[in-house]
């Protein structure tokens, strides 16, 4: 067993466990967005950044950093809350997140995080990019305006479904999630229409057709349910 401290609470972790999982074990919640159980951690959204006191105050993503003996972790502080709020603000300002029109309103991880962290307004200028909606798939839709580029759909598709339909194109702020090599989703030859990407999506970017405002409830936990039932190789 590995012994570490999180928010001054002594915590024990199994070798290989991340700081995030270790914290959960003692009931310490660390905000996350790009992380979902059963998918490999990528440390992209930076909301789960925690401070390691004995690494010179370095910030590391709790979801992707293995617990190590003797770590002195700060998971909650005024400074971290401000940082997390800033990151949320950047996400809200990046694309067109209009909750009032969104299928996921009320069931949206981005919205919930804003509430949890007390982000009640955005101090950055909105970018208002002009982004398309892909409604070519018979069952699902993709609205790039709501996408936060967490990559959960990409990982669900490759790691759980094994279809490798989703990927990223472009880079930086011009990055887009795309099916196959830029085909309309409906024309994808690899998509199995399993819907795991939709369930994995934390916001209203991927949605089931026929759902109106605030009707889209996601179940990202199905990814873990599916993988846990699989025989281990």
């Amino acid at each position, binding site marked *: 067993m590995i012994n570490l401290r999180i928010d001054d609470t002594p915590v024990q972790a199994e070798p290989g466990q991340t700081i995030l999982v270790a914290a959960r074990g003692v009931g310490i919640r660390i905000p996350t967005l790009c992380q979902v159980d059963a998918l490999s*951690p*990528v*440390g*992209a*959204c*930076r909301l789960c*950044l925690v401070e390691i006191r004995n690494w010179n105050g370095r*910030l*590391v*993503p709790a979801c*992707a*950093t*293995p617990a190590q003996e003797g770590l002195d972790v700060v998971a909650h502080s005024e400074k971290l809350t401000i*940082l997390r709020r*800033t*990151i949320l603000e*950047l*996400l809200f*300002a*990046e694309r067109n997140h209009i909750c009032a029109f969104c299928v996921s309103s009320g069931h949206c991880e981005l919205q919930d995080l804003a509430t949890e962290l007390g982000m009640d307004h955005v101090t*950055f*200028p909105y*970018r208002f990019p002009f982004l398309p909606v892909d409604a070519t798939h018979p069952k699902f839709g993709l609205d790039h305006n709501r996408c936060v*580029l967490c*990559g959960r759909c990409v990982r669900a598709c490759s790691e759980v479904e094994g279809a490798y339909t989703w*990927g*990223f194109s*472009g*880079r*930086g*702020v*011009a*990055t887009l999630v795309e099916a196959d090599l830029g085909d309309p989703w409906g024309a994808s030859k690899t998509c199995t229409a399993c819907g795991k990407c939709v369930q994995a999506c934390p916001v209203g970017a991927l949605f089931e057709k026929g759902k109106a405002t605030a009707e889209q409830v996601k179940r990202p936990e199905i990814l873990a349910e599916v993988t846990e039932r699989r025989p281990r190789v």
Partner: protein
Amino acid sequence: MTRIQVLLCSGTACQSSGSDKVKRALLEALGLHGLLEEVQIIETGCMGPCELGPVLLVYPEGTFYVRVRPEDAAEIVEEHFLKGRPVQRLLWTEGAPRPREIPFFARQVKLVLSNCGTIDPEKIDEYIAARGYEALGKAATGMTPGEVVAEVKRSGLRGRGGAGFPTGTKWELVRAGAGDPKYVICNADEGDPGAFMDRAILEGDPHSILEGMAIAAYAVGANHGYVYVRAEYPLAIQRLQTALAQARKLGFLGPGIFESDFSFDVEIRIGAGAFVCGEETALISSIEGRRGEPRPRPPYPATSGLWGKPTLINNVETYANVRHILLHGAEAFAAVGTEKSKGTKVFALAGKVQNTGLVEVPMGITLRELVFDIGGGVPAGREFKAVQIGGPSGGCLPASLLDVPVDYDSLSQHGAIMGSGGVIILDDAACMVNMARFFLEFTADESCGKCVPCRVGTQMMLRILDRIVAGDGSEDDLTRLTEIGVMMKKASLCGLGQTAANPVLSTLRYFPEEYRAHIRDHSCPAGVCPNLVRYEVLAEACRGCDACRRACPTGAAQGKAGNLPYRIVDELCIRCGACFDACPFDAVRKEPR
């Protein structure tokens, strides 16, 4: 019997200024005089003063010719090679024909570049004659891997890619790493604007990289290596491929090197040119065939790198140092440099400096020596203003810091970084806000988009800088820039985002008054930012040629021949600069508004 040897630089810069044509002209002239047996032309790697190309060095006496045109070939052959009279007009400085008499060369200490410009990089025999592969032989036949690691550790060598991590310690970590096989990677994805030292080494002395990698592989217990080099370096790739084939043929690579049981081979991977792929984890991801995106560390590549195996990844220049450490010993290596930064560093001098090009200097030399003694200072008529060191991840240091020693720790203490060694010199005609904006635009464009602070943070900073250079900034913007910059430094996933704000933060620190002038006075003191300048016609220079009036799209440039001078009506001017570009007499001036 060869009487004269002509070393003709055939680095990328000299090739683009026509070294091929010079070679053909020289051969033709030599043939005409029947000297082909007596004079040998050897194509070498970069000699350093790139702006003066094509350059050539004539031995035995060591005459250094610059800006040689094909039409000069006949004169060189007839005067110099036949009559023994060096062609004075082609010397760099009149009366000082030899490199060691020229300040640019005299202050340099060439270790990594010792073969660059002295041997033919496409001939392995020449490399061997320069004690090539001797260090590998020494390691593979006479030292244990542990001894090699200890020697590198004792030398104090630090990574030349930018961060300056102690190389020996890294080797030790990989050697101790659990997993099999292990890999050795050479990071040749040099991408900083203005940096070209890795390219010069690959082009001018490719075997030194292969030898360094082989020694490293022996030390850490790897049998397979990769050189990750960008597709924009075709000559480097070609010479590396030639070197690989030659080294394999002579048994310096492959199974049972030096009849030991150590085997090692190298594969070249060509990168598509994304800046972020110079970051080690993104580079590894790219070699694995995936999108070039960084991943969080720890785990570091030393424990989990390429395909999850312990991986040693070092920069080109770092590997180029290795053979010298084994040949001359750690002590000799450590005798050069400062207490914490040992050895030499190659810098690429660019921008407003007399001698642009590639130089190698001992660590700890001051910026003043680098810019003025070696670089020759700012061209006449202008004043030195600042030096941007470390590329887009580095910082901008003002004249008051010219006496700062160039080493890892001193530079980072002042808000710059060593980086890969790109040095851009700025004169008083440069606008620091515009310069910071330029670098930020580069990093914003090169951000891979994986993490939020870098992807969106760079955009937000760029937006503020756009406002400031347009004259629409506010005092609050400066605080905001610092806040976002500091946030990106702490919260970004990889080095790209963590350092992207450095050019902005360092110019805010050293040139705050320039930002204020843009904001408060709506004026660009250097007269660079298009929105913040006023165009004026200098009465005594105007000849009434009408060029400005014809070029002006809005009728702001007005006048009549015979009624001089012309004038530019500021209210009508849209500041496109067409009149400025059109004036053949430099009569149109840009003035701060």
